């Protein structure tokens, strides 16, 4: 499955000033950074596309960010929003109109200046059903979206290029997440003439305004980025060249890193080698650890007996020994007690969740009318470590009398079973679990716990639909006033606390990120676990062995 935007330290859109936000001073550029040099990154899988309207997997997500820019971005290594192609922006008091002033003199890689018309074109393109963008749904709050999505209009009526350097967005409802939406890749700006020139192959011939431009793409072998000398952000990027070598098994990539042939294995440390790397002080010193906006969970289909009984679901929550599962994956995660990961705004630190208590779990099962347990099925993805984790869950469930048979299937098949109302009683989410697209608590609700996701083919595999919570979620997202951002987070905390009372999920753990790099790589640690750039922030890192 596609992996999405992850984040550690979260800052909500609302942390920014309502009203006129002036352009921030250019982010301080690392004074120690050296200019020049080339690095090599490896990946196992082919890079599918470099089209920002289409790319949605974790290796092309960060690559696209280096080729293109959006109106908004995040401070390097953090989730703090900042204007990017926009110089400043203004939000109307009702939270329904966003006006952005664009930077002057920003040029596409083909030499043409980027203007407000390009921003409008890019959004019309991404929402047009013909583009088949997996990100079109993010723009649902823009006026005119429904007409475009239905194929009745070619252009979003709510987006207006006021003048070449001013773009105005009118929304159908106040949207507290809109600035994040202007920072995700799907809203990045593309030049119309190049899109029309290459048509469906634009993703292989990307032209943006970003820090790097595409120099070479040999299908299945190699992608080379070279420095954009005309990049509007003076002093960036530091590197002259990045070579992505494709088709390298993680274990082979690790061997090559140890021989000094590459700089970062894009797929991370292979699980089988994790202990070996961490036990070697020299290698361990080159590992950077960071959080992720990820939660791994067990879903229980709330429409299928016996999981339609809340007591059964609570019993499952108490039966799972999360510490043991975390140990099984070499402590590459921390135990979870609620849907939101700890670094997400709205995470309830005071919430203790369900304790691991086999006796109490058995008692709850008996109360629910299953003193001897029952038989059920647990679906899981068939790649390591998920079958092992599923077996641990199976043993924990057996301890309270629930006999779960494991259905270990390919990812697409598990996703299909989850999206079928009578498809899967229980699913272990590993390998398909939710990673937030942007650092806002609302992103963990709608598609996976809200009524909108509890539809055939949806992602709400627990088929949990609480109309009251849906109303509360809409209410929370309409709070655009920054003075009330703490209140909004509290509203979201309350929503997730209520969800845990109903227990459609048993949250199991939050994954951590471990990035291994070569000794010559320089730059702050947070660039190597950058929440929005996986594996690393290509624009801001540098190498130490050049002068």
């Amino acid at each position, binding site marked *: 499955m*596609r992996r999405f935007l992850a984040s550690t330290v979260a800052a909500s859109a609302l942390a920014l000033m309502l009203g006129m936000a002036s352009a921030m001073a250019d982010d301080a550029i690392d004074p120690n950074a050296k200019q020049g040099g080339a690095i090599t990154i490896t990946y196992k*899988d*082919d890079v*599918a*596309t470099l*089209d920002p309207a*289409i790319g*949605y997997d974790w290796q092309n997500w960060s690559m696209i960010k280096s080729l293109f820019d959006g109106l908004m971005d995040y401070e390097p290594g953090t989730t703090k929003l900042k204007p990017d192609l926009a110089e400043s922006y203004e939000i109307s008091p009702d939270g329904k109109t966003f006006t952005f002033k664009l930077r002057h003199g920003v040029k596409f890689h083909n030499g043409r200046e980027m203007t407000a018309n390009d921003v409008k074109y890019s959004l019309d393109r991404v929402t047009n*059903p*013909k583009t*088949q*963008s*997996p*990100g*079109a*749904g*993010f723009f*649902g709050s823009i006026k005119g979206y429904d007409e475009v*999505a*239905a*194929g009745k209009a070619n252009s979003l009526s709510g987006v207006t290029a006021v003048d070449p350097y001013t773009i105005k967005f009118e929304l159908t409802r106040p949207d507290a997440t809109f600035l994040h939406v202007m920072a995700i890749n799907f809203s990045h700006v593309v030049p119309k003439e190049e899109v029309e020139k290459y048509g*469906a*192959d634009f*993703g*292989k011939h990307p032209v943006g305004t970003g820090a790097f431009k595409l120099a070479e793409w*040999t*299908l*299945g*072998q190699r992608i080379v980025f070279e420095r954009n000398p005309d990049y509007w952000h003076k002093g960036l990027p530091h590197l002259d060249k990045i070579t992505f*070598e*494709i*088709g*390298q*098994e993680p*274990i*082979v990539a690790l*061997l*090559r890193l140890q*021989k000094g*042939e590459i700089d970062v294995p894009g797929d991370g440390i292979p699980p089988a080698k994790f202990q070996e790397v961490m036990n070697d002080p020299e290698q361990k010193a080159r590992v950077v650890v960071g959080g992720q906006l990820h939660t791994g969970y067990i879903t229980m289909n709330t429409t299928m007996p016996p999981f339609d009984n809340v007591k059964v679901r609570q019993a499952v929550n108490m039966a799972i020994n999360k510490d043991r599962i975390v140990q099984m994956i070499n402590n590459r995660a921390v135990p979870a007690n609620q849907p939101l990961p700890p670094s997400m705004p709205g995470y309830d630190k005071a919430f203790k969740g369900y304790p691991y208590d086999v006796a109490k779990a058995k008692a709850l099962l008996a109360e629910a009318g299953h003193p001897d347990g029952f038989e059920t099925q647990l679906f899981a993805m068939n790649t390591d470590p998920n079958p092992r984790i599923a077996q641990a869950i199976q043993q924990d469930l057996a301890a309270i009398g629930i006999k779960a048979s494991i259905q270990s299937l*390919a*990812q*697409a*098949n598990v*996703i*299909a*079973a989850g*999206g079928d109302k009578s498809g899967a009683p229980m699913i272990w989410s590993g390998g398909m679990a939710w990673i937030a*697209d942007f650092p806002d608590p609302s992103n963990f609700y709608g*598609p996976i716990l809200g009524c909108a996701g509890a*539809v055939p*083919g949806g*992602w709400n595999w627990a088929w949990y639909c609480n109309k009251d919570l849906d109303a509360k979620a809409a209410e929370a997202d309409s709070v655009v006033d920054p003075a009330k951002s703490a209140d909004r987070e509290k509203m979201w905390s309350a929503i997730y606390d209520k969800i845990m009372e109903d227990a459609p999920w048993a949250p199991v753990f939050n994954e951590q990120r471990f990035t291994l790099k070569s000794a010559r790589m320089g730059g702050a640690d947070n660039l190597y676990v950058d929440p929005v750039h996986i594996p690393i922030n290509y624009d801001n890192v540098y190498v130490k062995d050049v002068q």
Partner: protein
Amino acid sequence: MIAYLGRRLIQSLLILLGVSLITFALLYLLPADPVRQIAGRSATPDTVENIRRQLGLDQPFIVQYWHYLTRLLSGDLGRSYIQRSEVTELIVSRLPASLLLMVGAILCELAIGLTMGLIAAVKRGTSTDQTLMVASFVGVSAPQFVVGLLLLYVFAVRLGWFPIGGYGSWRHLVLPSLTMGILGAGWYARMMRSSMIDVLRQDYMRTARAKGLARGAILFRHALPNAILPVVAMIGIDIGVFMGGIVVVESVFGWPGIGQLAWQAIQRVDIPIIMGVTLVSAFAIVLGNLLADIIAPFIDPRIKLR
């Protein structure tokens, strides 16, 4: 001969048609929805249905298959769902790498297999023979990803003779060819051994020996050419075995061929690519068998085409 060829050609076309139908049907029956994969998690049901319509996936099976087939006849394999590129372009860009690997593998298996078989036959019944036959058994049975990783570890990581995976020079080619070749070498060693033993038993061999010919001359001038023919005729059939092997070997060595493409496509339910690679592989196997049949009577006149 021409009648035979015509019959075989029609057979081959029917086989390809059958392969396309079966693969298409299996992918159709797969309980995974490619449209959902394309549309992503944030898509509304309307968007999903829109994409389904655009791709023609809302049509009944037989209509979808018919559309695929008519496009196929004009050489169009469609566009990848995930990469959005022409499948033909993706396959063509990777085919040379797979063919190169196959040539390397054939050279390896012949060089190793025939030598082993020859020695084993000559030293029949000795410990050398037994050792070689055990080795060939191990070669045939060892999983290719294990052999591949082992070769990588010893010859690339420890000894540093070859690069650790990748593509580009003859040095990159050695280890993956060897990995694929070892499997075939086991078979060839066994075939060569029995074929050679057969030949050595023949009357004309006794005659040669009776004439007082040197041992080397008997083996290399009289026995080897006769023993090698039936073995070499098997190469065409090997292509089928290789088509299975490249999926594993190309992944281990980061070899940018169609095996790797297929493996990635399977994981992402990228149906047009899976179909394309399957058809190209089937075509290669059919062609290989056909060539093997046609060539056989030329190198071994005892075989006649009927």
